[in-house]
């Protein structure tokens, strides 16, 4: 039985795990004190937050003290990039990133460019990958920070974080990773990965929205300037009263994810394979990323000569993401896909299918069939199509 909405947009957000929701509700009614307060109720809130820190720390194999709670990945990215760039500015003002990063990263770099920093934008290869040798060649004596995402939110491309991080370490360049799409989904061992700063958010792995964290490695080099001021919380790096219920929810979501990561991953591999095998025969179909590698929860495809907005409407009740913003007079094809060498037309006809824990094989079959029918219908409508 197919519901009136088939949700295949897990890369945008995930439903909150039931256990997480229950804990948060309980927290809101019984653990409401300010965690900075030094009375018994405050200590109870503080204990909840410390527990969440241990749960996230266990997921990432990192010390809970390396975590700074934020409102989500966007804030974490801003804090990491702007904070690190400004702190290290006396040593140099050269920064490195890629045009395929999330806006939460690229817009911070653009802001820093206006403030006198110089940014090198490294182009990916046609599969979206960054070779470590490309990064190494871009590093200069005044380079202070590199920011490369773990899993691309549009294409699912996974970067070689270990190799890229090693280049950064060897050259004394701070390395930030936007891991919003990776945490809770792929194994991350921060005890061994050469990562200095890493952003995560709860709602991408079945936790609540409005809460995230920034990992700051316990190394002398890893200092950043705060973005906010107004209190002594979190070592003054990110002051403000901590939301106990959201943090507790994030912590439990991390624990749940750690316990079922292998099963979730296997489930996603099977779903993507089934979906890909159903649509791969479509003439001219372009895969943005790779159908065989990358994060299996995301498959991004462009249909040939299809108008993206009409395709998206034809795909209802599928809840998917498109590579264009067609609600304005000027269509804006995805800048990520354009950076991969896609034409405007290919980019704006792209659809990102993203699967999750609750996606069923029946839904994937339905989605694939629906996609094939929608593409066929729109192809036949176009001038020049055979009658």
């Amino acid at each position, binding site marked *: 039985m197919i519901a009136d909405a088939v949700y295949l947009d897990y890369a945008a957000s995930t439903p909150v795990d039931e256990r997480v929701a229950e804990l948060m509700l309980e927290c809101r009614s019984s653990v409401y004190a300010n965690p900075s307060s030094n009375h018994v109720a405050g200590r109870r809130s503080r204990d909840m937050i410390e527990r969440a820190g241990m749960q996230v720390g266990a997921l990432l194999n990192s010390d809970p003290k390396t975590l700074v709670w934020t409102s989500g990945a966007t804030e974490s990215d801003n804090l990491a990039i702007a904070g690190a760039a400004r702190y290290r500015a006396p040593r140099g003002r050269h920064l490195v990133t890629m045009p395929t990063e999330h806006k939460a990263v690229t817009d911070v770099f653009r802001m820093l460019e206006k403030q006198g920093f110089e940014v090198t934008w490294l182009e990916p290869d046609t599969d979206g990958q960054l070779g470590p040798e490309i990064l190494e060649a871009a590093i200069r004596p005044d380079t202070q920070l590199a920011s490369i995402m773990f899993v691309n939110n549009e294409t699912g491309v996974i970067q070689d974080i270990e190799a890229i991080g090693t280049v950064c370490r060897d050259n004394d360049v701070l390395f930030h990773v936007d891991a919003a799409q990776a945490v809770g989904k792929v194994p991350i061992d921060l005890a061994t990965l050469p990562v200095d700063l890493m952003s995560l958010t709860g709602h991408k792995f079945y936790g609540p929205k409005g809460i995230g964290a920034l990992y700051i490695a316990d190394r002398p080099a890893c200092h950043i300037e705060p973005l906010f001021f107004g209190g002594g919380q979190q070592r003054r790096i990110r002051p403000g009263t901590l939301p106990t219920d959201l943090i507790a929810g994030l912590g439990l979501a991390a624990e749940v994810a750690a316990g079922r990561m292998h099963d979730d991953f296997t489930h996603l591999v099977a779903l993507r394979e089934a979906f890909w095998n159903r649509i791969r025969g479509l003439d001219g179909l372009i895969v943005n990323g790779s159908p065989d590698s990358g994060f299996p929860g995301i498959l991004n495809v462009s249909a040939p000569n299809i108008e993206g907005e009409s395709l998206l*409407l034809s795909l209802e009740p599928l809840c998917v993401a498109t590579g264009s913003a067609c609600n304005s007079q000027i269509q804006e094809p995805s800048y990520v896909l354009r950076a991969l060498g896609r034409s405007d037309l290919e980019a704006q006809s792209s659809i990102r299918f993203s699967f999750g824990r609750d996606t069923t094989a029946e839904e994937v079959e339905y989605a694939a069939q629906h996609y094939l029918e929608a593409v066929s219908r729109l192809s036949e*409508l*176009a001038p020049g*199509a055979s009658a």
Partner: protein
Amino acid sequence: MSSDPYSAQIRALFADLSHAGDLDNAICSEIDDQGVHIRLAATCRGGCLQALRFRAWGCPHVLAACEAVCREYEGRPASDLEEFRATRIMEILSIPLEKTGRILVIEDTVRSLGRSMCDGSVPPVS
């Protein structure tokens, strides 16, 4: 207030594009501009539009508007096509203002078809 970018009329028309296709021995008008590509075909008998069909590459508003045009003008005098106004169909179908450029392409296509049918300057296209 609805967050749906499409009116009920647009959704209904888009779901039932029964006038999509071609016609034998028809007079055609075709324009590719503003990110849309439209071809209108019509047959005429006794000065009246016997049948209208369209092919289009464009957003849902464009496809729905093309369907609406075909439904509205079948059976009417061919000369009526020259009176077609984009603003009117935008109002009827609640098409947002930012789509005006695309709907004007429909206006150009419809009026061009009307002129061709009235002066008979364009040979039939099968």
